[in-house]
């Protein structure tokens, strides 16, 4: 008799908790909320405090606000930053998918964390990522054209081709300077860099420019040797992709290149302000706005599964140059780039 009572109570407790949990799920769907003009719950998770990611988050918020969804006025916006901490990241993602109607992930780790959290909680909410270099590689989407599920967003893949075209233009505008050989330097342990290197190599070689690649073994002290090798092997310009190690050591790269009159073509703006010559850079603020635009389309009924991954148009890219570097190497800017 005692054993049966115990068993009965356990079963009742189990049944009770199942009902409670089920009852806790968000009842109203996003579509219904939009139709009824309810306040929408929006969540944003950012991976770390970097200027690029900060700008993207700001862009998302501004675009949403312009469409009538500002925090406290049409929407409740929760922003969480896991500051590179992988343990905290998962818990934050879980909270966000539970409490919101639509979420944004700023940088690949957050996009992935939100996707995983939604799967685990079995919640089917739209997830938008931004500042992700390769969404397919990160398994966020099945293909860039057809994401296939509830996840889509924008990529910050470096506009490598545009950058190369700009380089050609620069050389064309300077008599006596010829682009016969392009050097590339990056950290061999960073996959993103290899992707960019392969792309520009293809483009350059197709344009008849010789390419030489130097990889650094994750060691800051070796960089100068590799740069000098590229220079002494006759490179007219050196391409520096958006590589963390190179970005941290632009000083020595730029100094060595400037001394030899070699152009430094950079993957992004920060490298130019630290000494690189020119770049066409992703404007992360605009990228954030673009992402929010996609989110608004989804809120208004679009299907994320068929919404292709987007990137910024050329016009939205930021052209940047470093005056001192240009002076040092004796180059002038072509007219149309001077504005």
């Amino acid at each position, binding site marked *: 008799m005692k054993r049966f009572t115990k068993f009965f109570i356990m079963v009742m407790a189990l049944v009770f908790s199942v009902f409670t949990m089920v009852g806790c799920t968000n009842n109203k769907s996003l579509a219904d909320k939009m139709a009824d003009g309810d306040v929408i719950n929006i969540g944003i998770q950012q991976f*770390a*405090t970097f200027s690029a990611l*900060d700008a993207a988050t700001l862009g998302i918020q501004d675009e949403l606000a312009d469409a009538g969804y500002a925090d406290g006025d049409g929407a409740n916006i929760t922003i969480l930053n896991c*500051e590179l901490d992988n343990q905290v990241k998962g818990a934050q993602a879980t909270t966000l998918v539970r409490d919101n109607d639509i979420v944004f992930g700023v940088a690949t780790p957050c996009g992935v964390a939100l996707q995983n959290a939604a799967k685990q909680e079995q919640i089917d909410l739209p997830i938008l990522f931004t500042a992700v270099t390769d969404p397919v590689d990160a398994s966020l989407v099945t293909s860039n054209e057809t994401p296939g599920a509830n996840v889509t967003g924008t990529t910050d893949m470096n506009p490598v081709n545009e950058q190369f075209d700009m380089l050609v233009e620069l050389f064309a505008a300077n008599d006596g300077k010829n682009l016969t050989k392009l050097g590339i330097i990056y950290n*061999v342990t960073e996959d993103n860099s290899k992707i960019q290197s392969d792309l520009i190599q293809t483009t350059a070689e197709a344009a008849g420019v010789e390419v030489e690649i*130097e*990889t*650094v*073994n*994750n*060691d*800051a*002290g*070796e*960089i*100068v*040797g*590799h740069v*000098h*090798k590229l*220079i*002494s*092997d006759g490179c007219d310009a050196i391409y520096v992709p958006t590589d*963390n*190690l190179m*970005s*941290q*050591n*632009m*000083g*020595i790269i*730029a*100094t060595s290149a400037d001394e030899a009159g070699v152009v430094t073509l950079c993957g992004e703006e920060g490298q130019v*302000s*630290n*000494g690189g010559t020119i770049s066409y850079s992703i404007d992360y603020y605009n990228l954030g706005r673009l992402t929010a635009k996609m989110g608004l389309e989804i809120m208004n009924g679009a299907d994320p599964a068929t919404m292709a991954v987007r990137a910024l148009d050329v016009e939205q890219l930021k052209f940047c140059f470093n005056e001192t570097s240009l002076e040092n190497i004796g180059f002038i800017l072509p007219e149309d780039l001077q504005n």
Partner: protein
Amino acid sequence: MSINISNLFLAFNLNYILTDTLKLGFAYALVALGIFISFRVLDIPDLTAEGSFTLGGALSAFLLVMDWNPWIATLMGMIAGFGAGVITGLIHTKLHVSGLLSGIITMTGLFSLNLIIMGFAPKVSTVNDELVVTFTEGGYAATVPLMYRNIHGEYIRTIYSTFSLYIVNNNLRIILIGLSITILFVGLLYLIFGTKIGMSIRATGINPHMARAQGINTNLMIILGLGISNALIAVGGACFAQVQGSASSTMGVGVLVLGLASIIMGEAIIGKKHFWQWLLAMVGGSIAYYLIIVLAIQLGLPTFYQKLLYAILILIVLSVTLFKEVLTSKHRKNAISEGDNNVKSK
């Protein structure tokens, strides 16, 4: 990438090889001297190195952006490195944690501290001739670039800017200043270890029992020794950052191995019979080792083979030393058997 031996003889290339090696080589020499003190003199495998190297670079870089006198900024880096070594020493002696683990603990803590220090350095740029000073949000940064302006709008001066009026050639000036700093520290170390305290530190490392029996406070000597060791490594880091043009969170990666390899090479090539010889061996070893790295790069050796090459090289150097010893003792054994009973070792 084919191996380009012909390139080696181009004057242009030789210039790069020499200048690159010596510019950073002298910074690494300080690191080797520092690691020498902990690993060889104190016989403690202190892993704080990667943290204190970065600490020296980060702190001095921050102060340089704030327009401090570059020599004082470097000195501050050195003092901070001394502090890091003291912390490792305290953990080891007072908390009875093994030397190895103590160094790891300090190094781990320094990782965060260095990011925070670098976060204090503002970014300075000019927009329309006006100075724009941006402070980092979030409280940390992974880099401090030294290529531009300090907080007062002037170009950042490093210790290598000194004498720029008298020695115009940048590379030559950097090399000469680096050489002077190295000579200064080698001299200082020789003096320190000849003093009573210095000999107490040496005795502590060789035989702590004997040291205590002779009234030496071995705990204090260890703390002092580790402090000096990491102070040197930090100066190396400060010099490195000023040559490299930036301090970064990853600048310390690999310096421990580099330092140890330099010690091994130096001892094998130059020898350690006398203490002053041993000190010079540290300097010689680092420059030799870094030279090989630079040569390997210039010869076009594929990056992923490079580390294998260094490992093989160290093995070769070690076996050459062993070979030399075997040869010498064989030669002397023969001398003995020929009836000479009074073979004195030369």
